[in-house]
């Protein structure tokens, strides 16, 4: 089928269809414009893209960067893994009346600030690493549970009725519809919330800098007002986050191929 010609007006219309190649050109064009605007407006306190690029190259060529990077990655993966397990258990139990208030309370913990609880967590944990993991879990789990419970709440009631009509017990229906049926959504929630943990990690690493990490690097550079390095690290963190997001998206398609099909009428 021939590709329809893209008109300039399509770029400005709501629901305008511009095709993949035009979208790619648009993205590249806007990126270049943003960089040019940044380059032209920088030079004072704000480092220019060329200065950030120089800093990034320097940071990436230092061996300590990789030590810090792996320290951060290890911490985030450990915290994410534990948070997912805790959030899944809490969310799956949410449909059992006795556990519902607990799940609801954990969801509301999104409104608690971590800063006020640092002292309590310091008393409760034995070392800096445990402190960071505990804070991350405490910060991530309420967001995870909120998203997962929202997925569970949006399940079509007819799916449970189908289970009943197929003579399944309540536990079997729960397993089939809530656990197996929503695994792809759990993965999606995990992908979306990975960004939260990635943002929180830099803050938490600042609390205990002995293990290093990208957060510790960022704080040190801030302290010496080395804004070229600060922006360099920020850009690196941003790219790692974007790549992880893409990777998790690909893994979801691979593990759950049915999510790639649009339901036909």
């Amino acid at each position, binding site marked *: 089928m021939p590709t329809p010609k893209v008109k300039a007006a399509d770029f400005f219309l709501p629901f305008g269809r511009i095709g993949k190649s035009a979208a790619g050109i648009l993205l590249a064009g806007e990126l270049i414009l943003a960089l040019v605007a940044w380059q032209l407006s920088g030079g004072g306190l704000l480092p220019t893209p060329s200065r950030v690029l120089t800093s990034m190259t320097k940071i990436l060529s230092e061996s300590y960067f990789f030590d810090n990077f792996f320290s951060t990655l290890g911490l985030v993966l450990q915290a994410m893994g534990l948070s997912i397990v805790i959030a899944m258990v809490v969310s799956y139990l949410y449909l059992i009346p006795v556990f519902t208030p607990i799940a609801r309370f954990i969801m509301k913990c999104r409104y608690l600030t971590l800063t006020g609880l640092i002292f309590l967590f310091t008393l409760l944990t034995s070392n800096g690493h445990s402190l960071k993991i505990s804070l991350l879990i405490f910060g991530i789990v309420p967001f995870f549970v909120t998203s997962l419970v929202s997925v569970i709440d949006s399940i079509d009631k007819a799916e449970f009725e*189908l289970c*009943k*009509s*197929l*003579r399944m017990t309540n536990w079997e229906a729960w397993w089939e519809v809530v656990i197996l*049926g929503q695994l792809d959504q759990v993965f999606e929630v995990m992908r979306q919330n990975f960004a939260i943990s990635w943002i929180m990690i830099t803050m938490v690493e600042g609390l205990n800098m002995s293990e290093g990490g990208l957060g510790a690097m960022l704080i040190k550079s801030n302290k010496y007002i080395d804004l070229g390095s600060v922006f360099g690290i920020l850009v690196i963190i941003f790219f790692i986050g974007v790549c992880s997001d893409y990777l998790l998206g690909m893994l979801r398609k691979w593990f759950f191929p*049915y999510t790639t099909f649009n*339901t*036909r009428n």
Partner: protein
Amino acid sequence: MLDYKKEKLLLKASNINLKYDTRQILRDVNFEIFNVTRPDVIQGQVISLIGRSGIGKTQLFKILSGLIQPTSGTVLIGEEQRPVVAGEVGVIPQNYILFKHRTIYNNLKIGLANSGRKLSENEAKDIIEDHAKQFDLQDHLKKFPAQLSGGQRQRVSILQQVLTGNKFILLDEPFSGLDPIVKDKVDELLMKVSHLNEENTLIIVSHDIINTLALSDTAFILAQEPGKEGATITEVVDLMAMGYAWRPGIKADHTFLDLVLNIKSKL
């Protein structure tokens, strides 16, 4: 005249009332379904519950399948006339719900697995493949529900319930949103299910009068009586006694079309 006999009672709905708060949805719904036999023909029953949209058909559908309990009244099924329990009546909802994370084969397998029959993996595979062939689904067993058209999903949904072993199958608006050619295919499919077993009883809940009546042997009209709140059975149409049942091409018969118009005026 058609040669048939009404034999044992298969389903009895007695004094079904359904209220939500003070709103009466269903009022004193009473009807009976009998096993109809014909000489030299293995054929189940096709019953229709016809009513306007929003009259309470779906609520009655859920009560008949044991998915919800009425405010008062009973639904008794089987030869021993026991109260209906969810799982004894197959349900085909309007949007043909299937397990989206399972392939068609595994969707059918889960139906068979809950049939109470002890089968080896190979026996189950043979049964599924055999039925899939009968329902023209043999090329779709490895696909996921989202890859199938609405008509194909409907066939899987019906077959899933057939494999569960339910003799009663309730269908909610099976003709909804289908074009005339596909509607004819649904007719054929439902007749096929009906012919699988003498006691198979299809209960079609619909507002599509012509297509539903053309398939049925008995129709119950669900409507509101003047001045009374809540829908009830206002008329029983015995299509067998009228000579309209089991007649292919009945949709073109002008006396049948008059009957359709007559029923339409009463809804």
